[in-house]
């Protein structure tokens, strides 16, 4: 296979890549990340595979472009025209539209937007904007996004090295290895103000410098892809959509700190990400971009993949390293930092996928340019997976400093059904709930901490007014009770006892003094736990107690769940005057707990009712009340 050694080799790949990206033929690329496949992209891809032998179009695949709510999506390019993204696709629609596509037409039906030069300019020639289609920046979801970590996802074929090189990939590594000393790279990262995107927000440059200065001839770089927060999938999308960016980032980091070996610790629950990355590493190796003497220089570097076995705590750096070493994935105290003594007690630099994907972009644009984006303390952009009660659920990348409100209502399109925003949970299970009246804070590592939450890795769960905050705290705590490794007492026993108390409260068995007891345990768990999992585990309770204390009190004192979520504290009744005796609830009730007949108002038999809420959902006359 062609080795890439000199710049002209890169140029040749670039040209090839551009010809693939901006084809002179009809090209259809199915967005087939895990999210796309889950909504049916594979069926569309398989259908198109069956048609491709006609020779009338070229078939490719790409990652997710972010608006997961509208998947499956298909990118269609016809000669001379800018790529069009089609959303909410089905096999049937594809079959129908394919007839036009192969004729070089791009109908507006199901079109979402064009991938115009606001996003990707064709370097080969000018392309026409097909008429009638929305432009990329016309879409409110994309209007204020700025893509750095997600710069290629949803556009290039993640398996194709030339497409990555066509987007400027590996040129940065080439420049770095040919003539820049490692100190200068670290200077650049320090100047950029890049902070770790995995949760802690530690300054990346400072981490690299400590590791570079640490004693030891053998050093390691690690990419943490053990993304475990419920509802978060930023890293998965990067690995599935743009694996080479992580490889290039790791190689640059390896060169900067003096490491020749890198590990990617990726959870086994991400089979597509593992497969995509595995192929990308092999491809890079085959072309000499990993292995001995990269670009003909003295620098050798290679990457191994380690699959995690599904423990949330293995996202903690020392537990992750223990797991790579073949030991039980439990954290150890970090008083001697991992940059001094990490994997196999060697100096180790660990960053997460998003941070590594940022690295080539930061070095390429220069630290001071990067720093211009975002806020003073938090430079650059941040990828968020926005899920829950939100219109545009999906993956967004926005400049730091955007307010939460703007993110929820501007980018996210607001709350469905005209309901009110109640809170935003940021920072994963160990983060906190930010109430709606604090939603005008800017997205910034330090600002989020001030309101009792944290940036975390980027999971944002949007909650509307029908959410019970006690139940939310209980949910996150249950997650942490299951995921606590059990090594230290406060986390193992403390979170468990906290959950037992919350369980009682949501069952209507709360007692006076429960809130004080919760605060007492929470304080010890926070102060005395061994690792960050335990130290941050009480955050969901503490933040909801701060902002929604009345809701806790209603559960304990009045035995009521104001949001109508906690089953033990609600009852369903049918208002006879409003009931039209249509029989819909009666037929739908899985517990046969509704009686009544034709023209006889229905009634719920309390002893039989399981409070599943189906009657409430199906009643078209608002006759079912939840009290």
């Amino acid at each position: 296979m062609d080795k890439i050694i000199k710049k002209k080799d890169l140029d040749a790949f670039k040209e090839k890549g551009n010809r693939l990206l901006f084809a002179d033929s009809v090209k259809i690329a199915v967005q087939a990340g895990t999210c796309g496949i889950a909504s049916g992209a594979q069926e569309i891809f398989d259908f198109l595979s069956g048609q491709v032998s006609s020779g009338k179009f070229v078939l490719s695949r790409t990652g997710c472009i972010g608006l997961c709510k509208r998947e499956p999506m298909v990118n269609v390019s016809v000669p001379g025209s800018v790529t069009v993204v089609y959303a909410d696709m089905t096999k049937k629609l594809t079959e129908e539209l394919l007839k036009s596509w192969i004729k070089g037409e791009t109908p507006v039906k199901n079109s979402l937007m064009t991938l115009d030069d606001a996003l990707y300019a064709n370097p080969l020639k000018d392309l026409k904007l097909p008429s009638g289609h929305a432009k990329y920046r016309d879409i409110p979801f994309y209007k204020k996004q700025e893509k750095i970590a997600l710069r290629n996802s949803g556009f290039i074929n993640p398996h194709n090295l030339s497409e990555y090189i066509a987007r400027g990939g590996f040129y940065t590594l080439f420049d770095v290895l040919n003539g820049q000393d490692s100190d200068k790279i670290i200077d650049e990262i320090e100047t950029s103000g890049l902070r770790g995107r995995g949760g802690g927000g530690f300054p990346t440059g400072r981490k690299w410098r400590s590791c570079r200065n640490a004693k030891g001839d053998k050093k390691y770089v690690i990419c943490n892809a053990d993304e475990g927060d419920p509802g978060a999938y930023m890293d998965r999308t990067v690995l599935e959509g743009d694996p080479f960016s992580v490889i290039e980032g790791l190689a640059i980091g390896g060169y900067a700190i003096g490491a020749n070996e890198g590990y990617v610790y990726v959870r086994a629950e991400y089979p597509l990400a593992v497969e995509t990355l595995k192929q990308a590493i092999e491809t890079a190796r085959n072309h000499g971009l990993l292995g001995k003497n990269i670009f003909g220089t003295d620098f050798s570097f290679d990457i191994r993949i380690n699959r995690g076995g599904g423990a949330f705590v293995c996202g903690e750096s020392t537990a992750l390293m223990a797991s790579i070493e073949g030991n039980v994935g439990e954290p150890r105290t970090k008083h001697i930092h991992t940059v001094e003594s990490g994997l196999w007690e060697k100096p180790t630099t660990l960053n997460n996928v998003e941070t590594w994907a940022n690295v080539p972009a930061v070095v390429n644009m220069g630290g001071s340019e990067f720093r211009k984006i975002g806020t003073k303390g938090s430079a650059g952009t941040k990828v968020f997976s926005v899920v829950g009660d939100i219109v545009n659920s999906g993956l967004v990348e926005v400049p730091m400093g955007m307010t939460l409100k703007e993110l929820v209502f501007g980018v996210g399109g607001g709350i469905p059904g005209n309901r009110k925003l109640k809170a935003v949970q940021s920072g994963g299970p160990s983060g906190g709930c930010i109430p709606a009246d604090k939603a005008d804070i800017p997205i910034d590592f330090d600002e989020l901490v001030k309101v009792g939450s944290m940036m975390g890795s980027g999971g944002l769960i949007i909650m509307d007014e029908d959410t019970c905050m006690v139940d939310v705290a209980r949910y996150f705590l249950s997650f942490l009770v299951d995921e606590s490794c059990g090594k230290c007492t406060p986390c193992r026993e403390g979170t468990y006892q906290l959950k037992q108390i919350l369980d009682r409260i949501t069952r209507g068995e709360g007692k006076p003094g429960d809130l004080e007891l919760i605060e007492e345990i929470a304080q010890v768990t926070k102060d005395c736990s061994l690792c960050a999992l335990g130290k941050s585990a009480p955050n969901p309770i503490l933040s909801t107690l701060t902002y929604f204390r009345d809701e806790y009190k209603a559960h304990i004192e009045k035995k009521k769940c104001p949001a109508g979520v906690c089953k033990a504290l609600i009852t369903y009744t049918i208002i006879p005057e409003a009931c039209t005796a249509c029989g819909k609830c009666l037929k739908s009730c899985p517990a046969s707990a509704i009686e009544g007949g034709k023209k006889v108002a229905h009634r719920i038999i309390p002893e039989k009712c399981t409070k599943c809420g189906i009657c409430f959902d199906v009643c078209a006359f608002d006759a079912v009340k939840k009290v």
Partner: protein
Amino acid sequence: MENNDLVTITIDDKTLQVKNRTTVLEAARSAGITIPTLCHHEAVAASGACRICIVEMSVEKRGRTVSWMDASCVYPVHEGLVIKTDTPKVRKQRKLILELLLSRAPRSERLLELAAEYGAETGRFESVNQGRENCILCGLCEKVCKYSIQANVISMAFRGVKKKVTAPFQTGSSLCIGCLACYNVCPTGAIKYVIEGNRLKMPAWDADVKMQKCTECGALYAPSEYIKELKKKAPGLKKDVLSKCPACRRKIFKAGTPA
């Protein structure tokens, strides 16, 4: 700074100089200050698991005092560190940690002793494991078996509250040599053994090993497999020393006629 350099620290208002990166626990003990421990044992590396040895620490940073809690058994001292081992906050947090541990091991004598000292109450929290085993999952038995004896018989399985010490696949282990190191390091008396006939049995991991007879007096004095291991590990020992019970050994040595 190298590890042999001395740093100045303050513990409970005593100022002292200790080697850099000594643990706070070691430093306190050298100053005659007692800090309670459960999961700490000289035989194995400190793990900071039980957290009973937490202390309050502070440093001056840019004109401000920054303070925090941490486990003294693993925290390495550094220049200017101020440590308080017995403040109301420390006592309050140790009390809660003890109460949490008591929910799992309500009958452990050592825990009850500490509970009396810190005013910890039993039964404040829901019982875990129905308090059956008195094990507080400190990990000493696992570590001593793995690193000191190198027998690797037991380890932790599962995680969180469901965690337990067990032999592989929760079945009996044929690897146990009956050395009783685990029994000896256990701080809560959770590990039990019995001698039935000429067998030593440890019900927790279904170990069942043969006891050796003293060649002098015929008393059962140690498990045979354990003696074999000792022979391998200390090849210089005279054969007769290991084949006799401690009492007979002493008699022979006293008589000045070692075999």
